[in-house]
């Protein structure tokens, strides 16, 4: 798993690649929480995610909860179809804001209030 941070239009963008599993969940969570602390909005570019396990899904959702609790916005972008499908049938997808592209996700997070 790697995380690459950029920023655009006031939103932090984190490009995630590789496998999001229990093994990397601690690092994943702390890095993204740190990014959220510095920015009102965080967009996760999911296009490089290969595998998202049960624990990975939960870390993602916890992050989303943390963001909401602190008045921040979190959005997913470019979720690969296979990952999206797993998220859908396990009931996770509809708990997130998800956008087809990073640009749309940035636009949406900069417009909406939390």
């Amino acid at each position, binding site marked *: 798993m790697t995380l690459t941070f950029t920023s655009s239009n006031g939103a932090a963008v984190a490009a995630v690649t590789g496998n999001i599993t*229990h*093994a990397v969940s601690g690092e994943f969570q702390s890095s993204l929480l740190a990014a959220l602390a510095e920015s009102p909005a965080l967009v996760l570019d999911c296009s490089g995610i290969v595998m998202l*396990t049960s*624990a990975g*899904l939960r870390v993602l959702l916890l992050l989303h909860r943390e963001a909401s609790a602190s008045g921040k916005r979190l959005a997913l972008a470019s979720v690969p179809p296979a990952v999206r*499908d797993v998220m859908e*049938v396990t*009931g*996770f997808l509809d708990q997130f804001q998800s956008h087809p592209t990073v640009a749309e996700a940035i636009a949406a997070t900069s417009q909406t209030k939390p």
Partner: protein
Amino acid sequence: MSGRIDLYPTEEIAGWKVRPGQVFPYGVSLVPGGVNFSIFSSVATSCSLVLFDKASRALLAEIPLPESFRIGDVWSVTVFGLDPETFEYGFRIDGPCDHQSGHWCDRSNILLDPRARAVSGRDVWAAEPDWTDPFPYRGFVVPEDFDWRGDRAPQIPSEDLVIYEMHVRGFTRHPTSGVGHPGTYAGVVEKIPYLRELGVNCVELLPVFEFDEFELSRPNPVTGALNMNYWGYSTVGFFAPKAGYAATGAAGMQADEFKTMVHALHAAGIEVLLDVVFNHTCEGDHRGPSISLRGLDNKTYYMLTPDGYYHNFSGCGNSLNCNNPVVREMVLECLRYWVSEFHIDGFRFDAAAILGRDQSGGPMLNPPLLESVASDPVLKKCKLIAEAWDAGGLYLLGSFPNYGRFAEWNGKFRDEVRDFLRGQSTSAGQLATRLAGSPDLYEASGRGPRASVNFLTCHDGFTLRDLVSYNAKHNEANDEGNRDGIDDNRSWNCGVEGESDDPEVCALRLRQSKNAILSLMVARGIPMLLMGDEMGRTQGGNNNAYCHDSAFNWLDWSLVDKEHDLLRFSRLAIALRRAHPVLRLPRHPRADATGALGFPEVSWHGRKPWQPDWDSGLAVVVWASTDGPDVILYAWNTTPYSEQIELPPAPGGFQWIVEVNTGCPSPDDIHEPGTGPAMEPGGCFLIGARSSIVLKLAAKRP
């Protein structure tokens, strides 16, 4: 500072940091920094925890538990630094091996935790397993936190239920289903709009506890395909949802997918009942495999004969010793788990008479397991339904130990209404008893019609279409010489055995199907439909289709169009039941009670009002609600001749409205409730041969 002071390792075994574990909960649980394991055996002289790497399936570690890790008969250990997503586990138990005395310990074997929350080995349905694997079924942990997001159990009163008995895979596996994930929990979700439109408000799922579809598999002599354990009445893991029914089973996410399905069904107002098999396990008799319970503590978990053989009250080789206090606790814990973790609304207990047997197999008057289930606080709102018999000859219909809680699959309703349907019985009196919610079975105990699950077909036996198309079973494809399956089908083929293109035969079959569905929807009690019966699903006359994973068993969704007529009838017959509270009252109707609009609560008639002929093939009944102005006339003429009946006079200002007449072709066979034609005052009704009608009293139309 926070955290527990005992969550640190005390020793190292086989290279792993461990400590004596927490006894509770039994099974596996995640604790901060580690994973806790706890397992019961009253005979083990030693116990090892065996860990495998999930991805490679290679042995990761074997941790022999010191004697100090045992409290009572329970061994427990906490292992630190174990990644919960990447390991699988089992137990190696040493102890006595003396079959005559009932002991089957074998330290060369690795055993599945009976409380495993997920079981690997059969992750993708019918994917060829590694047959050389000596330990094919392995436990693993799944996260149990699921965000139920405002889920609310529908809590539908029993009398208002319309149950749809279905097979998770069979429901959407057929290519015509058009769903994204055929044959899965996710597939069920995609078909919720269909269930809503049909009007059923409860699904009863054939077994979803992990089982092995390859159990006793063999080539089909007719097709060459593999005959499999398709139904799944053979549990491998009681606490694990069937992975092969999950689109995400290969990723180990079956629990989340299952919960998502329940959440979606609840949101649509549909309850979820599980068909559960606690009467036996997949370990078979003395020739069967040792997978879990047999090797852990055979004598505790199974009912044994004095010389150490298995009692076979299930017809499947063994009988779970479910009134043993330890086993009882496991069964109860399992039910609680499915209700608390998966939000299940109730259970149908397969061959439940076994659950009332004592440890030597004798029937008990007050079986502690059933009493515990009936009075358990977590299960308090659950629907509990017993199949009140077993394969050992114990038949408890009407007398199942129920504690005011258990309903029963009413086998008498099935048999006697089938007899009336085929015209074999011309006992309107017998039919009257079944329509009244079977007071002969359920009045004395005070349970009333809520105890009667009324059904004409279920997974076991003919489908409805086959019930009106075959006189005899045709089970050749099961490869048992057509000896399997019951012979007592009480069916009638309408003149031709099997498929026919004779228009008269087809029309009669369609009408008979409508008569059958209507009888379910007007009878007091809880109606149950078998998946596909609403649109004429056939199994080609096979009345024991347990082993076919093929289009033979899968629901063909092209029937939605092909059998549009019957499907429309089914939908409107369910709507009729919903529109008329008098059909759903939770008590047996009484002839001496005053109902609405001057009618008694129930009155029987014949060709002339108030003159029933109990020994005829013509039944005419009027039900009048005691709670409101709801009066229904139902008549069923099962003779091959038309019968003219004189209608009981409608009171002033009212008239009889036709709701149903199966003697008419669609769309005049059934109307949207309250929209049918009105009868002339003082009129007669000519009921066609083998036809049934429903009229309702309504204020005269201006």
